[in-house]
């Protein structure tokens, strides 16, 4: 059973969101997603300053099995990306919720977070797949 921290919000497309205080959130992919993808060999991150819409493609993760788009779960502006992933994509496999964070977004509308899934609801999504 994959690890699902309860303080995070989740998207059906397997990203997680952590509230970092104020209107700032960090985003990554879930333990379940990294497990399905297998060992990651490449990560493409958005540009700092780019605008992202909830549900839009904004990054790519690639394993030896598959390349997969990562969708932004929220709307806003990318203010920081995890540059360390470029040289060490396996960080996402080893630590999907901590060191493997992908990018940080300044939210246009903090209320948007309430529309995301909590750990229990996301767990049901995984089960039903």
């Amino acid at each position, binding site marked *: 059973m994959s690890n699902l921290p309860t303080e995070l919000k989740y998207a059906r497309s397997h990203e997680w969101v952590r509230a970092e205080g104020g209107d700032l959130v960090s985003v990554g992919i879930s333990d379940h997603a990294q497990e399905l993808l297998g060992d990651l060999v490449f990560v493409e991150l958005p540009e700092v300053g780019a605008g992202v819409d909830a549900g839009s493609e904004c990054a790519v993760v690639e394993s030896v099995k598959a390349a*997969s788009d990562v969708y932004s779960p929220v709307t806003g502006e990318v203010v920081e990306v995890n540059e360390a992933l470029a040289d060490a994509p396996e960080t996402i496999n080893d630590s999907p919720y901590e060191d493997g964070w992908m990018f940080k977004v300044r939210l246009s509308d903090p209320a948007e977070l309430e529309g995301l899934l909590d750990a229990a609801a996301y767990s049901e999504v995984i089960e039903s797949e």
Partner: protein
Amino acid sequence: MLIFEQSMPGRRAVAQAPLDEGAFPDIPEAFLRQRPAALPEVSEMQVVRHYTRLSQKNFSIDTQFYPLGSCTMKYNPRGANTLAMLPGFLSRHPEAPPSHSQGFLACMHELQEILKEVTGMRAVSLSPAAGAQGEFAGVAMIRAYHDARGDHARSEILVPDAAHGTNPATAVMCGYKVREIPTRRDGDVDVEALRGVIGPQTAGIMLTNPSTLGVFERRIEEIAALVHAAGGLLYYDGANLNAILGKVRPGDMGFDVIHVNLHKTFSTPHGGGGPGAGPVGVSERLVPYLPVPLVARDGDAYRWLLEEDCPESIGRLSAFAGNAGVLLRAYVYARMIGREGMARIAEYSALNANYMQAQLRKAGFDAAYPARRASHEFIITLRRQAKRLGVSTMDFAKRLLDHGVHAPTTYFPLLVPECLLIEPTETEDKATLDGFVEAMAVILEEAERDPERVRDAPHTLPVRRLDDVRAARELDLAWRPGADT
């Protein structure tokens, strides 16, 4: 071991050596090598043994069952090779004038006609040198059509999420934005979702039918009507044409452009670099844009149609006329099979796939779309086994190699977790299909008893499990003297 590693200074293949070192007075001094090339220094016999050993390590359709889904790895009849290698074909220079190439041009013209007939399209160009180039030519023609009408607002190509990755890649290469269409649980395109995103920005849709999920798109006529009503065009990816050959024609389904993978459906050599051939067929409205050269027939004489004959053509895709040797093999194959034979291809490839799917289900495996009849291929998912036994689809695939079978396509389409996409083709007999099912049953039983054995496979091949993760992360393609090996 690389042949470079067998090199010994001064060793040569004397019988093969040129009589003199050669002088190249025509080449400017600046372009001549300063040092001899770093070639391996080996004897003739070493070379023969090295490459013969390598060839013995091949997994190929000539040695093993090769049920690689979506690839149509069928037997390549030797008769097609023999006829395509007649001296008149082999010795024909690509610049030879048409008056000296009437036989070759006649074969190419007939192949155009055969492909038109079997796909239901208005005209065919043989020149794309592979499936990907055929796709590129197809979408370039869609763009040329809209541009010629001054319809520049069309910026999107629709692609179902089950599509081959080449489809969105092609659309992007041709300057379009890709919009993904979801698939319903039953495997059909979600027509309601399609309705929601189609509009004046839609340049076209790229579809594979049967889809990569191994099922026939049942609402294709409705999809065609929707796309056409919005002013878009329909692109047919010919990857799965084997399933419907001689039975249903993409032209009759409403498609405007199609590419055919001759190296799949028309049984020319496939894999290991091909070379492939990806002819394109079009409906009436795209005829002016076909890539040149085409072959025309005037009475009993054949001639090339070139840029000056087809001013609106998207142009040439290669220096000459595509992969001539491959086109000849496909032509011979089509003539050997004939019209009735083509229908039998569809019947037997679908029968073989459905038989295997039924037998695998009996052996305890889960079909991804159990309610649907398979086309020429089908998907099983090992999700349940992976969860319960900790043995993945990749482990099953590697263990199959020990059983003398080339593994089916793994982890594609991405929509189905832990999947195997299995395509037996029409050229395999029942005993081979049963052998595969038996091997899968044995591996399943082994996974219950000794999962480690499956996770460590293969055990009997020249190399064990390769570290594909390290290979991708630390890519190293060039041999250097003294590099650690």
